[in-house]
């Protein structure tokens, strides 16, 4: 059985924080490729961290991964440029 709690609240937390990311404020350019690389690194970290005890639905940390996805979703949908 999939535990929905960490997925739902990880996404919500991620969207709350990701909505404040602004990329056009400094001279360092982060392209879409940078974020794909961060996502791949995040999947590896989630897999290596493993899920919480008693959660036997997936072999990777659903809270970590949903937070990462939430940050990207929040950045794409809600983030406003300065």
């Amino acid at each position, binding site marked *: 059985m999939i535990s929905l709690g*960490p997925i739902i609240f*990880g996404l919500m937390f991620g969207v*709350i924080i990701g909505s404040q990311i602004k990329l056009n*404020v400094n001279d360092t350019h982060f392209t879409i490729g940078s974020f794909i690389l961060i996502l791949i690194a995040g999947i590896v*970290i989630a897999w290596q961290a493993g899920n919480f005890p008693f959660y036997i639905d997936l072999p990777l940390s659903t809270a970590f991964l949903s937070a990462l996805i939430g940050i990207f979703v929040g950045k794409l949908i809600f983030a406003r440029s300065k």
Partner: protein
Amino acid sequence: MSQNSIILKLISLPISIILICLGIMTVLGGHITPGGGFQGGAMIASGIILSVLVYGIGNSPLEFSHLYVEIFESVGALGFVIFGLIGLFVGGFFLYNVGTDILGIVPQTIQTILHYPDVTNAGIIPYLNIFVGLKVFVGLSAIIFAFAGFKKIVEEDE
């Protein structure tokens, strides 16, 4: 206050994002693993602090407005108190775990609504962790924004 190294500027935003995700993971696992709201909130704030220290207060990709800080600080505190009052009015004790209901005094509908959706029988403990995490991360971030802002004002005066 910002750093001029391009390597730092390239690596600190990805590390900040990973730190924030680790903090959220710590908050959400507070009822079954070591950690919880305060520790997770401090980890999230450390990601924000890293970003502010490297990019500077005006140029940081992760920077919160006064309204944002105000809203989520209030939501964190109010949520905790509201869950405590629900326990007081429904179960008879402040912060009574109405999601688990050990004493068997809470109606089944309230118990079902306030039960955290996972395999453990944690009740409202994860919700309290989430509210504390929200408050701590916004509060610690506000402190570092204030310090960085004061330092910027002092540097501009000199």
